[in-house]
């Protein structure tokens, strides 16, 4: 029955070869499981390959901080894990306050996080902010830094996970589309456009298409398909090391070693998921450019050389769907990372593999389950 897919019968089928599917496949293989990954395009084709590459614990919702902290440990030894540095650099991420009122809310947040026992976010005053980000506008009163944060190259990273997983025996079927999933005894049959294949455990890591899989399994979710836009500039002289983000207005800002600057922050274009394409919204990109114009006067004459958007899934509460199915034995969900899932990829894969192999995990993931959307 698994003929067209080659090899023997898999223990686990992962649907979707984004950073999450590839990471889960790798970690399952590291636990001795036989894994098949089914991907409708190619690994990293959508948001996993074209996102801003932020590796950020900073400014996350408390519910996903444990997963993020776990992931950060893996990022700092990423080359040992996947035999590739993934372009990871760790120059910190800085959340800049644009007003005193905002700075006060940042202070409250850091205090709250400390009370939960998280210490990765650190409140900084105007002087430390200027030391870390000399080019920032004079008017900013301070911010928060997460010093171990950084950035990586998203497509290179996804490919590295995929290659390492393959080296450990994971089979990847690209260009194959899942058309349905049916229970068959104690196992699941996954139907595709090239035939059917069976396994006891299924991971739904289908990103912006995951709601269709979930609905097919009788667990509909209110997933929104979004297309966060990014721009990159021509090379400019090096002037900033950490990644800079804002909360009031949408911005994420990073300069690469080669001098080019990536500008993002979550302004949305139009996603056409059935056509696999996106349409840019220039009026919103103009707003994005205006924010940079205000914050970094040095950038005003720089040329924009490229703009694009990736197709992503967003949940109404901006938190991922992560964990066991509410109703089915052997079904696991890992999607809906709501435009901030890249950093979580390595750790979420490890935790998911633990959940699949042992039925449990020590990493707190309550609050992320699919049951929160049950009618």
């Amino acid at each position, binding site marked *: 029955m698994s003929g067209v897919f080659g090899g023997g019968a898999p223990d686990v089928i992962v649907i979707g070869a984004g950073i999450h599917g590839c990471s889960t496949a790798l970690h399952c293989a590291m636990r001795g499981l036989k894994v098949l990954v089914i991907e409708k395009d190619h690994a990293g084709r959508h948001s996993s390959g074209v996102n801003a590459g932020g590796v950020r614990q900073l400014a996350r919702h408390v519910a996903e901080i444990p997963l993020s902290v776990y992931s950060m440990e893996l990022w700092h030894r990423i080359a040992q894990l996947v035999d590739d540095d993934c372009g990871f650099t760790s120059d910190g991420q800085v959340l800049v306050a644009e007003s005193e009122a905002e700075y006060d809310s940042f202070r409250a947040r850091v205090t709250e996080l400390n009370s939960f026992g998280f210490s990765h976010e650190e409140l900084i005053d105007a002087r430390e902010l200027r030391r870390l980000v000399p080019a920032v506008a004079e008017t900013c009163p301070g911010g928060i830094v997460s010093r171990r944060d950084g950035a990586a190259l998203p*497509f290179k990273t996804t490919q590295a996970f995929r290659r390492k997983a393959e080296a450990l025996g994971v089979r990847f079927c690209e260009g194959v589309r899942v058309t349905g999933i049916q229970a068959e005894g104690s196992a699941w049959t996954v139907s595709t456009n090239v035939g059917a294949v069976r396994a006891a455990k299924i991971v739904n890591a289908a990103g912006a298409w995951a709601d269709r899989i979930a609905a097919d399994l009788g667990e509909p979710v209110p997933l929104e398909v979004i297309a966060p836009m990014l721009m990159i500039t021509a090379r400019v002289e090096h002037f900033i090391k950490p990644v800079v983000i804002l909360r009031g207005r949408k911005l994420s800002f990073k300069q690469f070693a080669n001098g080019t600057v990536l500008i993002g922050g979550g302004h949305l274009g139009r996603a056409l998921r059935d056509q696999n394409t996106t*349409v840019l919204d220039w*009026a919103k990109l103009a707003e994005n*450019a205006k924010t940079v114009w205000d914050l970094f006067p040095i950038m005003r004459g720089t040329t924009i*050389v490229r703009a*694009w958007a990736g197709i992503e899934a967003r949940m109404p509460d901006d938190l991922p769907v992560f964990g066991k199915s509410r109703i089915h034995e052997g079904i696991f969900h890992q999607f809906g990372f709501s435009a901030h899932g890249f950093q979580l990829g390595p750790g979420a894969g490890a935790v998911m593999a633990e959940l699949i192999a042992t039925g449990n995990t020590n990493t707190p993931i309550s609050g992320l389950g699919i049951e929160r959307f049950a009618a």
Partner: protein
Amino acid sequence: MKTIKDVAALSECYDLLVIGAGPAGMAAAATGAEQGLSTLLIDENPAPGGQIYRGITTTPVAAKETLGADYWRGTDLVRDLTASEATYAPETTVWSVGPAAEGPSDPGRMEVGVSVGGAARLIQARQVIAATGALERPFPIPGWTLPGVMTAGGAQIALKTSGLVPDGRVVVAGSGPLLYLLTAQLRAAGAKISVMLDTTPHENWGRAIRYASDFLRSPYLGKGLKLLLGAHRGMRIVRGITAIEADGDSRVRSVRFRHGSKEEELPCDVLLLHQGVVPNINLANAVGCALDWDDDQLTWVPQTDEWYETSVKGFTIAGDGAGIGGAESAALRGRLAALGAGHRLGRLSAKDRDQMAAPVRTELMRAGRGRRFLDVLYRPAKAFRVPKADDTIVCRCEEVTAGKLRETVALGVAGPNQMKSFLRCGMGPCQGRLCGLTVTELIADTRGVSPNEVGGYRLRPPIKPITLGELAALPKTPAAIKAVER
């Protein structure tokens, strides 16, 4: 014709937007305006003409015979355009074309980002005709990035716009009818071209010969013979060249080449390279038009219907951008494209459109005669498209070599878009607009599959760079203002 030089003077919406004022664009704009369509013709250059007729109203090259009778034929197109009701925006760039999100919804309505003199703006068009012409095919040989090595087309632009002629000992190398034309023009203007290295593969003659009868009845024959005879006077022509290398440290000093079993080296100050032109599909690619690999012309060609409308509704490509056919064919295809757009806009009945198109189509058949012979004869050799030497640079902006690309294919990187993330090839200032064909063919060759299977770079807007300041100052569109007021 009304000329606009200020972005604020543009209307919110035009029936027809034509991009590029070469033969196809000029003809399309004049034909569109003739039907009463509000027509805007946008062009980057200060005066109409495109590449082939570049500077036709302004060139300092006064002697008619220097640029030749074919060049001056462009005068008629300029006259028709000038007499029309079209609006013409020179020194204007189009940096984005996409489906319009808001406003009255007619299928094919586009939102277009334009920029004039450092000020950007979004306007709309109900139909867009891209007449973006052709580009010279990349010619990646060892040393092609040295100062002093340039494309023959580049040298021609300098001649037409400024009357500049390359200094010192000039060697031209490559293949195709344009190579002979450019050489003749440059020599007539006083360039010292002593040697032409012809890279046309010998075996092409055998393949081309069965298309020869059409060619013999075409106007190309007379022009070609005249150029060939002229070329032989006072210039050495070496045929059957199988390898070329430019040498020098800070700039080119000599050129080495192989023909048959012989290797030679000649000193030179300027090396001009040219191996034909390919459709400039950069805009079409960014807009998302379906493209096919044409194995005769060794390039991507947009899928179009008989009115040159692409797979993207309302987006039409006229002229060489839809497949190389030359200036005369381009102008005719511009007319047909505008008739098609006029019909889609409800201005022309199908019957009127077809009636008006019939004589143009007859002309087009005639103009295309003999083309196939030239395509097959001048199909460039693989050695000059897919560099053999590993240290030859493919992506000039990011200095990515052929060897590095082959190594990366071996890692399982199957296509140009994945390659971008690995090597940054195609990620520099030109955004892969120049190395795209080489990268596709090199990956296809290494993998042993067809370029169609490999695909090309997905090009991203802005199609032309704009500054952050320009984008930040983008005026709000009326639709956006209304949305806020609501």
